């Protein structure tokens, strides 16, 4: 009975379900992309400086500890409402796992591997492309996976600051005590989060070189967890 009502809700043009879906996907995709770029860039930038990496790593850890809803509420006075502030808030939330994994990934490469590569006469570019990138990429992908799932799940809360998407159904539904409307928002989000988790998990495995898969290191397991 509920399912039929849900189906009818989705199909009713008045509810603009597809527009909501599109808006939701857009917010998520842009935030994940920005968080990935910024997380990697900052991670690479701080890795050589003990001070900068200390600041970046600890700040990232701290940010992960802040409840998301508190974060959005605190950001509201500064960022205002709408699409852009939502992107800023979600991107900020998505950066820490990616930054941490980029940093840890680069640091986890045995110095002897780089020493051997230099001693063999590989230049900086060859070391980067042939050694460092293949070794760090799977660990970065694990970070992106965590970020993406987190962003997809959080984007509903962004309705509070007027970003639209599925969150609108949930917020309005709660306000009007309409179970169907709440489910129309909540179910797609749950499905999407699972889908992203599956896809990113697959991507992460695909990016892990066979030589590292033979004995999945305790480290990458720990980083992913």
């Amino acid at each position, binding site marked *: 009975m509920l399912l039929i009502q849900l189906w009818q809700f989705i199909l009713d043009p008045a509810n603009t379900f597809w527009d909501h879906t599109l808006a939701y996907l857009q917010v998520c995709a842009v935030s994940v992309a920005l968080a990935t770029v910024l997380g990697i860039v900052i991670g690479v930038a701080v890795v050589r400086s003990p001070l900068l990496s200390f600041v970046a790593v600890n700040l990232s850890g701290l940010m992960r500890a802040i409840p998301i809803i508190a974060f959005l509420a605190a950001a509201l006075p500064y960022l205002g409402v709408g699409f852009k502030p939502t992107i800023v808030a979600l991107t900020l939330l998505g950066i820490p796992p990616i930054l941490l994994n980029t940093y840890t990934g680069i640091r986890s490469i045995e110095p002897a591997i780089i020493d051997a590569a*230099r001693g063999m006469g590989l230049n900086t570019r060859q070391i980067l492309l042939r050694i460092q990138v293949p070794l760090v990429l799977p660990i970065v992908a694990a970070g992106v996976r965590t970020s993406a799932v987190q962003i997809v799940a959080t984007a509903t809360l962004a309705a509070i600051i007027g970003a639209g998407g599925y969150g609108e159904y949930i917020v309005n539904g709660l306000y009007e005590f309409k179970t169907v409307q709440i489910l129309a928002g909540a179910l797609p989000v749950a499905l999407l989060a699972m889908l992203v988790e599956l896809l990113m998990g697959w991507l992460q495995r695909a990016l892990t070189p066979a030589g590292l898969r033979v004995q999945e290191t305790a480290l990458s397991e720990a980083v992913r967890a």
Partner: protein
Amino acid sequence: MARIAFHEVSKYYRGASKPAVDHVSFEVAESSICMLLGTSGSGKTTLLRMVNRLIEPSSGTITIDGHSILEENPIQLRRRIGYVIQQVGLFPHMTIAENVRLTAEIAGWSKDRMERRVDELLTLVGLDPAEYRRRYPRQLSGGQQQRVGLARALASDPAILLMDEPFGALDAITRVHLQDELQRIQREMRKTILFVTHDVEEAFRLGDQIAILSEGRLVQIGSPVDLLLRPADEFVSRLIGSDNIQRQLQYLPVRSAMLAGTEAAGEDERQPRCSSEATLLEALMSLIASGAQALLVYDEQSQAPIGTITLSAINQAITTVRHTETAPTTVSPAH
């Protein structure tokens, strides 16, 4: 062709009170193995890493066949020098074959030539190509990994090999095994090898020359026999264990203990014989095995009898060496 010469080489690190390497001069002859022996902090690794310019000297020059390496592009220089380190540093995401052929690949070798080279090198270091080509470093034991490390260093057939405590992390049995393999490979390849070690036994086993370093300075350089017979000072004598009877028996030649005249042994055809270049240990074992009072010593080249060796002569030689410890003969370092 590859003679390495160090001339007044020094390395100062900012903030350090003493130089890491202090006016070191010596030469490594072509196709020979020179062991850099010293305790940690003696500057041996710094000295080694200056040869392929992973570290730049503060002053002094290093030449290969008379050409200063400082005038060569470091990347090009490194590509013609093999480099083997204690932690091996194999690339974990590449197969054994990919690891070994990487330098050849960068040099632009054809696929066929690379594959042949990989098979050749794996066979040389005692790994069956059919079994190991497609494996990954993490599937190999420490000893096997270092065999691959050696194969990788030899890939583009460099004339020089730099080895930084390559067997230091291996268990004693594997270490001796790989030392034997290196000697076998060296008989075939005739590379000029600079080999860092803190293991005196290893230095004696492998070295044509042993350079002893302490606090950045070259204390003495010489063949194992030179060092045993004429340690420069108390430090060298203690480091190499001049009074180590087993080491003396193993490395001192019969020549150093031989008695002049062949009368004692008699000119009998059946008299047990030994070469003047045999070790005292070999002579001792022959004496015991044959039950003879003396062995007839013949010259390695001419095969002519030149002296005799007896148990008391061996004993005498070892005692003499032990005494030099209290009254050291002065052999100044080569600078």
